[in-house]
């Protein structure tokens, strides 16, 4: 076992999956937003919804393409770097990923084609149906990924046979109670990402005094949706805390920076966890029973501290501790912004409040930061286990992987990703800066080439694929 290779493999997985999650979390929200827009257009007949729809469809296409491309790598990494995990948990994780791939392929790929091509070829109700199917496809993807990850957090429904996890109860794996607080948490996070990106775009246009009608709708709908969803999200976040406290005491203790068992527990708001001396420096702490109230919904419950867990089972304390606080901080900022913005919008004063427009415009990174730090909390907090309590990350790695191989792969991953994804992000930025096109949508793109939706801005048009007579 090469410890350097282990560290590099972990960094590589973290890097590739962090890059990947940015795009699906954006497109899941956007797909739902597109479905809503199309429904509104059908219900009201207002052409402005069509303009906004076509605009966001293009952005969806680029982000969707980037998500697909970066996702291919994920289907291979379990085997290349984590062959022991792949062997042992393959009978459970393999089928779940297969469901994800097959269902996504069926729903997203085929109905996405209708979205691009079919506007003039299918009846309006079918077009709306296709939009909804694409949204459903992305939701299914998210569901199976969350089932898969939840099984790694709280393994269930299996027996061990010859060192292999053999599933014996798929209903328990699929309807694991943990899934039903984590999946909505992720789904809501994706919706909020969509909402804030839409609102930020609206705010940008309003600040630049362009696209008046479109920007008003984007702002009002984006902020309004966020104002409703944010409290729900906080509630599901709380439910997630309850599951962590029940099943993963070491993660909870790290998140809370709690060293000693307490009954009832106090709540550390801010601190600098000093792992070496097992204490918090510069701590600002709410007295008991706030910790028990937050972690266990109880005034008297006892809370576990890290000192009663063997240090070899601790996660790296600082990462979940800080990542969690950044996530919550982003969430609270978004809540404040969404409520204040919606209130002003309701009073018809938002358009004149430039500071708040600026704040909304600049808020678009918040949901992404919250999602990434949230995942850091969940995944780093699960360490040193890959399947919590059963299989250690160190035992899951490909046994013969060398540091040299891992270094080479990590370096080329970083180089290629940085190169390509910066380009892609730049194209999304350019699309958004240019804004909606009020002319009818050109049918340049094709179903299998989502990224070609950005084609309107081409220096020259590619003139691809005009099928012959």
């Amino acid at each position: 076992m090469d410890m350097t290779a282990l560290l590099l493999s972990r960094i590589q997985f973290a890097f590739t999956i962090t890059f990947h999650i940015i795009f699906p979390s954006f497109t899941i929200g956007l797909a739902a937003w597109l479905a809503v827009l199309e429904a509104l257009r059908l219900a009201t007949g207002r052409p402005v919804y069509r303009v906004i729809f076509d605009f966001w469809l293009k952005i969806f296409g680029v982000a969707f393409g980037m998500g697909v491309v970066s996702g291919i790598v994920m289907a291979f990494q379990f085997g290349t770097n984590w062959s022991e995990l792949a062997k042992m948990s393959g009978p459970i994780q393999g089928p779940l990923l297969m469901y994800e791939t097959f269902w996504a392929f069926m729903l997203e790929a085929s109905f996405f084609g209708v979205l691009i091509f079919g506007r003039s070829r299918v009846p309006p109700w079918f077009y709306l149906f296709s939009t909804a199917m694409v949204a459903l496809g992305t939701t299914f993807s998210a569901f199976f990924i969350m089932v898969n990850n939840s099984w790694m957090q709280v393994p269930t429904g299996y027996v061990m046979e010859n060192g292999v996890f053999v599933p014996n109860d798929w209903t328990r794996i699929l309807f694991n109670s943990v899934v039903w607080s984590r999946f909505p948490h992720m789904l809501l996070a994706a919706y909020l990402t969509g909402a804030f990106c839409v609102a930020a775009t609206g705010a940008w246009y309003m600040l630049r005094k362009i696209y008046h009608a479109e920007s008003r709708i984007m702002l009002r709908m984006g902020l309004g949706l966020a104002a409703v969803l944010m409290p729900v999200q906080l509630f599901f976040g709380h439910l997630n805390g309850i599951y962590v406290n029940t099943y993963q005491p070491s993660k909870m203790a790290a998140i809370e920076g709690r060293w000693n068992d307490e009954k009832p527990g106090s709540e550390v708001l801010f601190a600098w966890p000093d792992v070496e001396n097992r204490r918090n420096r510069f701590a600002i702490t709410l007295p008991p029973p706030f910790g028990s109230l937050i972690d266990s919904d109880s005034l008297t419950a006892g809370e576990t501290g890290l000192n009663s867990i063997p240090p070899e089972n601790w996660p790296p304390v600082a990462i979940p501790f800080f990542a969690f606080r950044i996530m919550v901080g982003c969430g609270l900022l978004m809540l404040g912004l969404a409520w204040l913005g919606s209130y002003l919008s309701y009073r018809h004063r938002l358009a004149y409040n430039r500071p708040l427009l600026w704040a909304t415009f600049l808020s678009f990174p918040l949901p992404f930061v919250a999602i990434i730090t949230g995942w850091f909390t969940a995944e780093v907090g699960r360490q040193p286990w890959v399947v919590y309590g059963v299989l250690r990350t160190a035992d899951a790695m490909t046994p013969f992987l060398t540091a040299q191989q891992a270094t080479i792969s990590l370096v080329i991953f970083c180089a290629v990703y940085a190169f390509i994804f910066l380009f892609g992000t730049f194209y999304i930025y350019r699309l958004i800066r240019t804004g909606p096109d009020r002319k009818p949508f050109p049918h340049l793109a094709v179903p299998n080439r989502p990224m070609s939706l950005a084609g309107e801005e081409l220096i020259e048009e590619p003139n691809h694929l005009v099928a012959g007579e």
Partner: protein
Amino acid sequence: MVMFWVSLLAISILLYVLLDGVDLGVGLLFGLASGETRRRAMLSAVAPIWDGNETWLVVTAVILWGAFPIVYANLLSAFYLPLIVMLLGLILRGVAFEFRYKTQRLRWIWDLSFAGGSLIATFIQGMTVGALVEGLQFTNGEYSGGAVGWLTPFAVLCGIGLCLGYALLGACWLVRKCEGKVRDVARRQIPVLAVGVLAFLVVVFAYALAENLPILDRWIDRPYLFVFPAIGAISAAVLAFSILNHNDYLPFHMVALIFVSAFGTLALSFWPYMIPSVITVEQAAAPQSSLVFMFWGCGLIVFPLMLVYTVVSYSVFRGKVRTTGGYEHH
């Protein structure tokens, strides 16, 4: 149930080789082509299909993991560096399809990444198969060949062979989809490439005889396997005939048939092993509970629907791509 999933795996691999072989092959020929007009026409011939083609690679990977986890874990980790380089090659060529049209000055970068990515991915795929045929070093069911245990002259030869094969497939596709100069150049390339592929097959066969590869025993055991090379030989004859007759449609089908027979030959000479002489299909199969769960939710209905979707998306883009007009505006 195991047979069901082996069949789906075989279909997925075969579809991947045939479909992505086309656009990887066009990518290889793209590197040889000069002039923007020709390059554009070549890209147009594969642009609507490449993304869907690559999906079959992911489908193959997840079937392998879900239904045959031991093989997935062993092969992917044994081919660590080549696989990762291949994935990045595929990513680079994938984005090149779009990005090359977004810049004038830097277009050469994306053209290079398109041709280079295709070359890297093809070569590695061929090399991987070659290394498997020759046999990887395993100890107690675990790969023990080291970081470059797959790198042998035979594997390199197979890598080159697949480059020729994909290029042949790509050339036939161009003849079928294009008109004018592109078609004429591709038509001239076909005999050269076909002879190259033939020479490669002869060398492989001679090498296998000389080295007495274990895979040869299967052929002595099962003479009926020779039906596949026979199909291949007939296809090659029809291919030569159709080229002489300037037929646009037949060559592609014949080369596809040659690929199918080569695939059948390989698959049946592997059987019952998945990794030759190390792990059999039965040993590799996931527990029954996993296979059944995937059968109802994925294999039974969704997989056939995916096949239908592939057929439909190809039929939407049937016929020649129009290469006249529209290209000259700069």
